[in-house]
């Protein structure tokens, strides 16, 4: 029994059918962690990207180093670090939150790069034209640069969203009850691993394929020249 639900061991199909609701509990956690982690990655990534453009080398360089460090080290070890170190500093939070933060931090290193590359891809001439027309920096970003950067940024970010989802099982290492953890526990208790694990694999596959289709659709709907402003 898990989450108050029982499984049926009478046959393989009965077993599979009976654990679906249980796995769905895990799926909910998976989705929550994915979405929250993604939102954190988007915000933190933007902050990091902006910090890197600061002309002060004292700020830009350490930020660049931190981004590189986070990008080149395993998520699992970063997760352990946060999970065991934060309490030492008096910060206690549910494992789910720690896991989400770890996901957000790791992926912010990637998203900051996407922001940077997306902005850089906007032709230099656009900046120059905006300056020639004496537009303020804020307006330049808002009406000229960002709308043109978005068509390149959105698909890349969407792909990272899919990647985050595939990384959520790592959170099982710190007891977060996402899909893989749930499947493993079912296996531990019933000694039948094949069915739960295969079903989780299939669920991931379905999600990934659906998301990829959604991203492709999104890509086709975003005009290449930028978001049209009337």
């Amino acid at each position, binding site marked *: 029994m898990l989450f108050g639900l029982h499984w049926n061991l009478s046959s393989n199909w009965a077993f599979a059918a009976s654990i679906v609701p249980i796995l769905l509990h895990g799926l909910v956690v998976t989705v929550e962690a994915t979405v929250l982690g993604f939102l954190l990655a988007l915000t933190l990534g933007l902050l990091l990207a902006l910090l890197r453009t600061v002309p002060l080398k004292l700020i830009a360089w350490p930020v660049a180093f931190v981004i590189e460090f986070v990008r080149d080290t395993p998520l699992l*070890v970063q997760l*352990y670090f946060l999970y*065991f170190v934060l309490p030492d500093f008096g910060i206690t939070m549910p494992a789910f939150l720690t896991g989400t933060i770890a996901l957000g931090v790791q992926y912010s290193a990637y998203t900051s790069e996407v922001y940077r590359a997306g902005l850089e891809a906007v032709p230099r001439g656009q900046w120059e034209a905006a300056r020639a027309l004496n537009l303020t920096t804020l307006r330049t970003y808002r009406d000229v640069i960002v709308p043109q950067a978005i068509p390149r940024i959105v698909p890349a970010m969407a792909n990272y969203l899919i990647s985050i989802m595939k990384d959520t099982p790592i959170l099982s290492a710190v007891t977060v009850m996402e899909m893989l953890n749930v499947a493993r526990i079912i296996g531990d208790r019933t000694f039948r691993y094949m069915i739960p694990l295969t079903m989780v694999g299939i669920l991931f596959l379905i999600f990934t394929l659906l998301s990829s289709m959604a991203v492709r659709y999104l890509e086709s709907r975003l005009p290449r020249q930028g978001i049209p402003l009337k």
Partner: protein
Amino acid sequence: MDTLSKLLPSLLQGLEVTVWITLASTLIGALLSFAAGIAKISRSRVLRLLAGLYIEVFRGTSLLVQLFWLYYALPVIGLRLSPEVAGVAGLSLNIGAYGAEVVRGAILAVDPGQYEAATALNFTPRQSLWRILLPQAVVEMMPTFANLAIQNLKDSALVSLISLVDLTFKAEQLRNLTLETVPILGLTLLLYFVLALLIASGMRFLERRLALAAGREGTR
């Protein structure tokens, strides 16, 4: 610092395991990438389908799920893999699937004029692929392959969750034992970082050598 000197030998043992799993799985993964990438552009529909299936399944599911499946689920049908075999297999299959797209893309990105010249000289399609297209495509692949190699290094930490005694496993073990979280995990992160930098520079070296061989640099 004293604690570190006592912990270091143990961590280094784990490091050794991490290094060899990463190397083994990256090499095997590279072979799989070429096999699947080339199969995906072959004229045989069956090959294309098989390659496509492999790529979609291993890119579309989580690596940890794949590792768990290899380690926990396979025994059910009588195939009991050791953590080492399951770990290397899982990592190889995973990076192989991602790499396959890179290989395919790079081959298709070669100037179509090259293929036309090869056809005009009456090379068979297989000869064109191996003698003309691949040597040029390989150079294009290197930067992305470098990223995949580093990703593989990071992914290798997951094998600690199927009881493979790698660097992460050792680190967790030590932390559990001594409760010296910051030094141990900090040092572990640093070791991974150094390894990543080594891989990056190794790949850059390889890329330069290949570019020379492919006649790109124009000076010999």
